[in-house]
């Protein structure tokens, strides 16, 4: 059976990811910060087929939980409900919206290592380096020569494989990076990867130029 997906965050990027997940044939739940009933109209228009739930319920019933809330709101994510799930960090530190957050400001670690510490669960970093318009517009079937690449950075091989599978089913070529800390190059401003239009070959050569070796297979 295909993995059940929960998307926490029903904003710009969360609604796109939920739509792609539904299109990939995955049972998909979506949560905002409040009452799931209030999400009805948004989900009906932007991600029909996804099921609005509270974040705790959405996470509890899922195999893969994509966290896509502003980092300033990370503290409101029900961390306990994430235990035992594959957790994807799709977030970026974005001071123009988040304000200055001391946990991330000036950090030399990957922002996902900090997310992992705060949530207390292992995470996989993906989806963060593409804008929500592009995530929506750039899906391509497997084998298409122009298919775009999405990096999947993590420590745990099984979790990375599950996320890579989802990325592929959504319409992108997954490029695994190991360990999680290597995903720092995917962050805004840390290289030219963020926001760039890259096929798998192009992402690989960009990583190569940065001296980051992709994981041959998910470890």
């Amino acid at each position, binding site marked *: 059976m295909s993995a059940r997906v929960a998307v926490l965050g029903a904003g*710009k990027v969360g609604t796109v990811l939920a739509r792609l997940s539904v299109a990939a044939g995955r049972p998909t739940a979506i949560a905002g910060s409040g009452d799931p009933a209030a999400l009805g*109209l948004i989900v009906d*228009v932007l991600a029909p087929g996804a099921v609005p739930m509270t974040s705790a319920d959405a996470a509890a019933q899922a195999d893969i939980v994509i966290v896509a809330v502003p980092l*300033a709101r990370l503290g409101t994510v029900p961390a306990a409900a994430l235990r035992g799930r594959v957790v994807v960090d799709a977030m970026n530190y974005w001071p*123009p919206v*988040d304000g200055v957050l001391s946990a991330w400001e000036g950090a030399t670690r990957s922002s996902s290592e900090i997310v992992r510490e705060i949530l207390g669960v292992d995470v996989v970093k993906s989806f963060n380096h593409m804008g929500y*318009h592009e995530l929506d*517009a750039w899906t391509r079937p497997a084998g298409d020569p122009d298919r775009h690449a999405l990096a999947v950075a993590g420590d745990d091989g099984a979790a990375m494989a599950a996320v890579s599978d989802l990325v592929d089913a959504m319409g992108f070529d997954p490029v695994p990076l190991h360990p999680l800390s290597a995903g720092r190059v995917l962050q*805004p*401003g840390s290289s030219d990867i963020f926001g760039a239009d890259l096929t798998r070959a192009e992402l690989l050569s960009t990583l190569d130029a940065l001296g980051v070796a992709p994981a041959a297979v998910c470890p």
Partner: protein
Amino acid sequence: MELGIYSFGDSGTVSTRQRLADLVSQARYADEAGLDVIALGEHHRADFTLSAPELVLAAISSVTERIRLSTAVTVLSTADPVRVYQQFATLDQLSGGRAEIVAGRGAFTESFGLFGYDLREYEVLFDEKLRLLLELAREERVTWRGRTRAPLEDALVTPRALQPTLPVWVGVGGTPQSAVRAGRLGAPMFVAIFTDPAPARGLVQIYHRAAAAAGHDPAGLRVASGGHMYVGRTSQGARDEFYPYYAEYLAKLPQFPGGMPREVYDQWIRAGLLVGSPQEVIDKIMNHRELLGISRYVGQFDVGGMPAGMVDKSLELFATEVAPVVRKESA
């Protein structure tokens, strides 16, 4: 279809005095050339000269006759809606009924620290203050109670605007919850769009459905869009002339600390950024209209501290070659 321009008053290399003088004369030109709207942003940083748009709009009102005078956007979360209403009601009286407000989030957060607000309270601040401002625009006496400012008990807020109801738009950046709010409140919606307008179709649909569910008359709803714009004589010329200024302007964003790479710029133009010849800009505005049903487009016409001469030329092409065609095609 209404066409207009907006500015954040980017500092560039000239003095603030010069920059504001240029802006007033560009607004005067826009009025004479028949553009419908000039809108000014509100930022609280050294790289922009406009933190008090209402004052500059008042100066513009005295040298113009028809052009509507708006903000883009009023950072309502860190302002007092009572004061905002008074300022724009005054502007409305001074200008013979031309004032408008676009209330929104804005791209930066400095005003929170400056005025003593907590960014974590953003949602409740915006929501409460927007409701209050809409009520002030409709009612002369207001009774209000909330978390974010002192209560009002049958308070008389004067002067009243000259227009029967001062227009208050809700500015939306892409978050669907904002479109729900605009629709539920029955307020006109301004959508910021920089590249592809297609994803905003969902927002517009949500807006109309939320308004219908709240019982608002569809005839009272309006959608406008706007974003960065540069018009050049030729397609390639426009791209090349504008690129250095845009690249540097976008260095303010976290993703382009060293400036925007040329490939990304070209990709954005392909996706929909309004940079090009008059015909290309016409086509892109008409695409917004077809996809989103907009009745107003406003372009940010002086991005990135371009020299006044460049801004003037682009503005002239917009007013004389783009606007008349868009008006005709959309009539």
